[in-house]
């Protein structure tokens, strides 16, 4: 297989990954949304379930982050530098970039 054909095949695989993630996340989100609608306010079991369902919702945001990483990989495979306009860098690699606490501190130090 030529390198060009290999890149095309890799892009197709990445497209399939993207689609499979989206389909799975849709099912997970729908189940969580339906579960949250059934909870009863004030009930102790419902409070535990609410925490669990919210944790699932929070975790499914991985699709956004991984989606942006996939876009970056696709651009690299196509030989193009990832599209960057202005300050749009996308998610940082683990260990790089500010965490929430550091962001809060920085935000409080900068005048608007």
């Amino acid at each position, binding site marked *: 297989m030529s390198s060009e054909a290999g890149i095309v095949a890799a892009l197709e695989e990445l497209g399939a990954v993207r689609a499979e993630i989206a389909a799975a996340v849709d099912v997970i989100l729908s189940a969580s949304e339906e579960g949250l609608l059934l909870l009863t306010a004030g009930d102790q079991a419902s409070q535990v379930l609410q925490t669990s369902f919210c944790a699932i919702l929070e975790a499914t945001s991985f699709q*956004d982050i991984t989606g942006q990483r996939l876009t970056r990989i696709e651009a690299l495979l196509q030989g193009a530098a990832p599209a960057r306009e202005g*300050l749009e*860098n996308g998610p940082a690699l683990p260990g790089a970039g500010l965490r929430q606490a550091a962001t809060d501190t920085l*935000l409080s130090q900068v005048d608007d």
Partner: protein
Amino acid sequence: MLKELRAFVGNLGNLRKRVGNVGNHGATFLRLNLSRKSEDHMPVDKTMNVLVVDDYKTMIRIVRSLLQQLGFCNIDDAADGATALELLRGKTYGLVLSDWNMQPMSGLELLKAVRADERTRALPFIMVTAETKTENVVAARQAGVNNYVIKPFTLAVLKQKLTAVLGEL
């Protein structure tokens, strides 16, 4: 600063009511009332219109569900800054939660447009983004963002930032 102002306005409202009841003792109530802390804060109106802007449908669904868990019930959404701006021009909103990385108009461009419009200049605006560079946070702050949430985030973090911007939920 916004929270302090909100508390002060709330205190003035209470003062007006009490002065009406006690006549000449209003000055005494002024001293007592302003020394109190959070119990006189105005409650957040959770029926306010909230606009969630993100190009990922998944993120819109997540933020919408989490906001609903916090009691907000009127939530609109847009997939990019330009669409959001159209919605903002046609309806009164109390809060915008926006992603940064969108096309054709980014979240930062949306923020600048919101701050440039007299009608929306003071609209609470929270950036919810995976952009974690110092330059991004500084640029957003200088453009007038009220708070900045790093993706991925939890319900607790969202609640904390909403409280910081709007007051106790």
